């Protein structure tokens, strides 16, 4: 196996993992505040179509990325209004949001079907990007890849090392206590949900602007659900989420390579492998029930109203 080949695999793994990491980080923060938003898939799709539309209208990929984040936020705001203000059931509303996002993005995307678009340009760092092997693996990506990687320590630091992060977690653990201390529980949950929406929108933008630069209906093809699963897989820890997303990407890419090399394993098994790996790790982690309980936000998915 030549070093070039390994470099190529690593680049492919990075691109496969980035949308999962972006959406997963957003959902992680949302869930840490006690809100379970199952609408990741829908928000990704709305972000993907919005980002594509904006990028093709303005010719600027970065504008597309910005619009995608805003639209992801707008979709999340709808969810937040329904669940936090009108106190509807979070699970049902999240599922509805996914269905809504699939439909809305298809409708908005009609004029963009079959339209080509320039790929989001890689951030070329003079000198570094041209290095052999290391260049393409470390320095040959677009802005969203670096953003996703930078967001991991940023989110971890925010949640564990800052006062607002502590308050956000307390809202997720015990909204009653946080409320009694005078923290605006609903406002904090709104903010966390909007952050999740923005990150899902970015994940969508990565799909329609960088991964496969086009708009195609339902192009997220279940990645929103994988991101949701990865959050549990990571036991709500950003570092582990990074690990999970890249592990998933690695297995996905390696199974394609295994087939190309003519490995005599049925392709259906290889296609299942990334999911099996996720389930296996999930089972291993879940054996330690205390650890799960320590990390899972205690009030996740529960409706909170200050007056009750």
């Amino acid at each position, binding site marked *: 196996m030549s070093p070039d080949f390994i470099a190529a695999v690593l680049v492919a793994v990075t691109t496969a993992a980035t949308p999962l990491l972006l959406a997963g980080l957003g959902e992680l923060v949302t869930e840490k505040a006690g809100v379970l938003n199952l609408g990741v898939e829908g928000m990704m799709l709305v972000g993907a179509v919005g980002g594509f539309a904006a990028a093709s209208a303005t010719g600027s990929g970065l504008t597309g990325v910005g619009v995608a984040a805003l639209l992801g936020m707008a979709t999340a705001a709808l969810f937040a209004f329904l669940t936090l203000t009108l106190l509807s059931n979070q699970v049902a509303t999240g599922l509805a949001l996914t269905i809504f996002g699939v439909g809305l993005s298809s409708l908005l995307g009609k004029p963009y079907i079959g339209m080509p678009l320039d790929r989001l340009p890689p951030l070329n760092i003079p000198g570094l990007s041209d290095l052999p092997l290391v260049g393409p693996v470390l320095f040959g990506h677009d802005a969203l890849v670096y953003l996703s990687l930078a967001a991991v320590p940023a989110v971890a630091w925010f949640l564990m090392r800052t006062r607002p992060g502590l308050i956000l977690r307390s809202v997720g653990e015990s909204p009653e206590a946080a409320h009694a201390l005078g923290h605006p529980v609903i406002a904090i949950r709104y903010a966390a949900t909007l952050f999740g929406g923005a990150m899902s929108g970015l994940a969508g933008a990565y799909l329609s602007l960088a991964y*496969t630069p086009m708009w195609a209906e339902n192009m997220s093809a279940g990645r929103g659900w994988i991101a949701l699963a990865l959050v549990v897989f990571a036991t709500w820890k950003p570092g582990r989420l990074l690990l999970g997303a890249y592990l998933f990407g690695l297995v996905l890419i390696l199974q394609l390579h295994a087939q190309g090399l003519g490995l005599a394993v049925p392709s259906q098994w290889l296609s299942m492998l990334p999911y099996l790996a996720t389930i296996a790790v999930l089972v291993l982690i879940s054996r330690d029930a205390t650890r799960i309980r320590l990390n899972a936000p205690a009030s996740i998915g529960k409706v909170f109203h200050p007056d009750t």
Partner: protein
Amino acid sequence: MIGAIMRRTLLAGAVAAFFAAPALADDPLKVGFIYVGPIGDHGWSYQHNEGRLAIEAALGDKVKTSYVENVAEGADAERVITQLANSGHGLIFTTSFGFMNPTLKVAKRFPKVHFEHATGYKRADNLSTYAARFYEGRHIAGLVAGHMTKSGTIGYIGSFPIPEVVRGINAFTLALRSVRPDATVKVVWVNTWYDPGKEGAAAEALIDQGADVILQHTDSPAAIQVAEKRGVWAVGQASDMTRFGPKAHLTAIVDIWDSYYVARAKAVADGSWTSEDTWGGLKDKMLAMAPYNPAIPADVVAQAKQAEADIIAGTLHPFTGPINDQSGKEVIPAGQVIDDGKLLSMDWYVEGVQGTLPK
């Protein structure tokens, strides 16, 4: 959007049908379609919808067409087909293999309605089947790829290991190796018809393993984009995908249902419709090759066009022996042709395809 509206009017239609008077002879013929995917897949369902639009263009106000997209194969399909039949449609196209049994069931209950099922094999007095010989296009693609490849390694993205797809791989490989005897085909199955990200990743993996021409039997143009980015060749699927990779796109195998759909609608309108089994090819204009990339040398284009002409004339069959299986054993002797029955159930690779066929 129209699809969503259709569903609603269909529900109303199902109720209304109980009270509706029998359709008068001079009423426009109502033609219904169900699609397995979104029209926006820019592949399979998109091309069927082009066929529907062709009926409207050809027959004008003598017909009214409607469609329901994103219909799941299975029980849901039976409900939707029943609603179409109930709401006065005289001709119904069900455009995916998985609609076969539901279509047959509904056809039995509505003997006066004409049904057309794509790619299936179960027929009735009021149920025809139709499909296209896409393998003829794969043959042409194989000839072109044989001339264009430098590495002699071709990457092939497969959807599901069903006879339709295996037949395409084999037809392609036979033609490829008639030009370049040492060439091999690497197949990656993605187990989906449609997942742009996964199709793109499969293309990346194949290119990393040395493939310099990418074929696909999946529906999105992602692989074409990857080929363009990586500077290798690719062949499009179902529709002309040139705009996704102007430099990479050698040609594409384009599905064309227009003339068949118009002919069948006309036949129902004038009462000459009979149940048939149509498996049309280049000759019947049910598929065509997209324009050849200007980068292909003129003599190669000439050879490809000659092969098209020979297939149309009936003097060339892509599955003419000698044909060896993967182990190198001759399974079809020189001069013999694999018959349609064996083509329809093909479940083995020819020599030159790498890997084992998942069963």
